[in-house]
């Protein structure tokens, strides 16, 4: 197991290096500079700015500087907000995005699995149609439309929840709802289809024949296998949602890190692009690694350590 983990770690570092290099190449090959604001300027000012942010140095020097910043985990100041370092931005934004993401995932997983099981158990019944109807709506309504509808009805018209910002648990309800609906729908559909498949398997019949209660059959025998595909998508889902949803955070004015991903690219804010990319990649890689481990625990057929020996 230890050998496996070490090997995995090595691959992770290598992957990260490839991502950093690719990001750098893409970043410098896109036309534009961080100092193209719509405001007025002149050459001297532009030169001073380029010098200040080391953008006048040859590309290989810039590349080495970036590698150094990754190695020391110090990405320097943002160009768009020069008083803030990239670490400040991530340190402030990530906990908020993670909080929003974590609550969202929990809500999505629980409601998704429950919907999926109900639908599978009452296959082709009213509950099935209703659950899948909700799921189809959840997948097909983009979350920014749902968010606007929620705000207009629940916040502006009925005044139940605050419109936006991130201050109290009440402020979290609408964004979590808007953000969780999509993943919930995906999880519900996945759970339903695998449950249906599992429920026809011989070992379930066997369990029924043994006279086990339906509850025991579902929880102990069926759900375990039905959850495998859900676990598979959990890694990417977690990384994606916990590192910030640009649209939802913008609509609800949540000071998470979603906007840095998108806006840093528009602004050509190189240190922030690098910082967010490295952060996100590392997070995603770790999540995928955890999913691998979880497979091994949940499914005895997959033996992570034995594979190594083969």
């Amino acid at each position, binding site marked *: 197991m230890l050998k496996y983990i070490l090997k995995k770690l090595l691959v992770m570092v290598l992957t990260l290096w490839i991502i950093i290099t690719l990001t750098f190449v893409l970043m410098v090959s*896109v*036309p*534009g*500079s961080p*100092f*193209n*604001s*719509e*405001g*007025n*300027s*002149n*050459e*001297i*000012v*532009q*030169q*001073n*700015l380029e*010098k*200040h*942010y080391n953008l006048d140095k040859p590309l290989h020097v810039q590349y080495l500087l970036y590698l150094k910043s990754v190695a020391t985990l110090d990405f320097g100041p943002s160009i768009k*907000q*020069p*008083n*803030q370092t990239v670490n400040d931005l991530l340190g*402030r934004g990530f906990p908020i995005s993670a909080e929003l993401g974590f*609550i969202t995932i*929990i*809500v999505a*997983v*629980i409601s998704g699995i429950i919907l999926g099981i109900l639908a599978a158990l009452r296959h082709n019944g009213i509950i099935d149609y209703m659950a899948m109807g909700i799921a189809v709506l959840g997948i097909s309504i983009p979350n920014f439309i749902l968010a*606007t509808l929620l*705000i207009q009805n629940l*916040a502006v018209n009925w*005044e139940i929840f*605050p*419109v*936006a*910002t*991130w201050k*109290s*648990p*009440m402020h*979290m309800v609408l964004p979590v709802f808007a953000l969780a609906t999509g993943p919930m729908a995906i999880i519900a559909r996945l759970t339903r289809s695998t449950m249906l498949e599992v429920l026809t398997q011989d070992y379930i019949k066997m369990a029924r024949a043994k006279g086990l209660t339906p509850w025991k059959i579902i*929880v*102990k025998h069926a*759900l*375990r296998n039905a959850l495998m595909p859900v676990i598979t998508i959990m890694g990417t889902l977690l990384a994606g949602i916990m590192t910030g949803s640009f649209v939802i955070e*913008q*609509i*609800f*004015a949540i*000071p998470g890190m979603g*906007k840095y991903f998108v806006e840093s690219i*528009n602004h*050509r804010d190189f240190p922030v692009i690098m910082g967010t990319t490295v952060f996100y990649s590392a997070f995603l890689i770790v999540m995928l690694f955890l999913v691998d481990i979880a497979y091994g*625990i*949940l499914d*005895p057929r997959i033996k992570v350590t034995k594979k190594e020996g083969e």
Partner: protein
Amino acid sequence: MKKLLFLLIAALTVFFLAACTANEDAGKDPEEKEKVEEPAETGDTTDDETTMDEKVLRLNNSTEPSSLDPSIGFDAVSWDPLNNLMEGLTRLDKDHQAAEGVAEDWNITEDGLTYTFTLREDAKWSNGDPVVAADFEFAWKYMLNPETASAAAFLGYFIEGAEAYNSGEGSVDDVKVTAVDEKTLEVVLAQPTGFFLDVLTNPAFFPINHKVAEANPDWHTEAETYVGNGPFKLESWSHDEEMVFVKNEHYWDAATVKLDKVHFAMVNDSNTQYQMFEAGDLDTAGIPPELSDQLIEGDNVFIGPYGGLEFFRFNLEMEPFQNKKIRQAFSYAVNRDDIAQFVVKNGVEPAYGFINPGYTSPTGEDFRDVNGDLVGFDPDKAKQLLEEGMAEEGYDELPPITLSYNTSDTNKAVAEALHGMFNEHLGVEVTLENQEWNVFSEAQKALELQFSRSSFINDYNDPVNFLESFITDSYMNRTGFSSAEYDELIQKGKSATNEEERWQALYDAEKLLADEMIAIPIRYYNTVVLEADGIEGILRHPVGYFDLKYADKK
């Protein structure tokens, strides 16, 4: 293994359920708490309670200011807060003219080169220090230091020695800003500049408390260390979330300031900020583009001019726009009224000249009124000019034309309208092309675009600010235009000591620009704001930033 699995699933389920219920509780909690606490705290200061006695204005800054260091923050999101946290030597008054700020008096020598400012005795920083001349000298030299890399530094080039220092060739000692004594500042300009007092209202010229800045270079990054000298001071600043200003009791004119507090939210979504306004969380808001038709006529809408122009640049180095008549033909084919009224909407004014209304001449007239309409809509003349131009160049057919704009819904709508007008009135089919802002901007600078959209926002309150862009080899030129006559007019428009002479040069310069038709003016910018009932006195200057000094909430 089976048992382990069962345990794991059981644990997970319990955890999920616990988390779920905890979440639901959490959702209810504040509601209950509010209900319980409100009556208990009536005597104290709950948020709602304070609103009754205190005057709290709730605004939206849309995003985090780039920087509250006056030398660095060079955009609207920084200027709006800065203009209320600090004050320069001069401050724009209710008529948008430069009036006394920290300086109570000044003396300008006959040659228009040396300015001697006398600072107010009672001008103080928010920490109680007196505002001294050395604070200005420190701030301006800091802004001009090439290592500071201030985007605003070029505004300081009016000062003798500033350009050399900023470009790394000169020394800081040759920058002619001198604190003669505690309350006297002497500035020597590179050449006479009739609008220098207007330039000084820009936040780039705000003072910095040099004692504070020398002790802590990062003084401007957090509310705790922030020291300003304006009508308000920074009470709290949670980055990317909210800034809270309170009235600054040390401000020399504190008696005029009516508001107790100002909240700046940072909501960067046009629908959300409007919905917050609807729900009463904001006192002012912008109008979302989709709702413009419904809301623009309302009583609570403030519409004011904003110093800026949307225009389309010709590239004089690309065919067929080397020909003046062809350029003029395109301009005459544009129906600006229609674009303003039906395409851009939101109450904007069509532009029949380059300089927006709002600049008062030495004789008290508006620049725009004096120079009148310089461009117009005349399809017949357009056709005729196009034919003449094509004959001059020997074209049987016009070379293909591509109209470029940076990606945005409004820009697209304007470009499509232009496409239709050129087609209808000139019989020319232009190709439309949109690019992401940065890509577009680089291409425009490199003169790679044939015919492209542009916008200009004023930095200071004088027509020369815009007109200067088109002098030969200016960084802002981006058309390939070069005219010795124009350069000379602008030189005069910047440095003539006789104000009337200076303005005459500017009138002539604008006429020349319109006659050469190196860019098609389309419309002027404006400020459109929804204001809640009882909000009064927010000064929205056509150039740049708003002033809350006189604002009130009834």
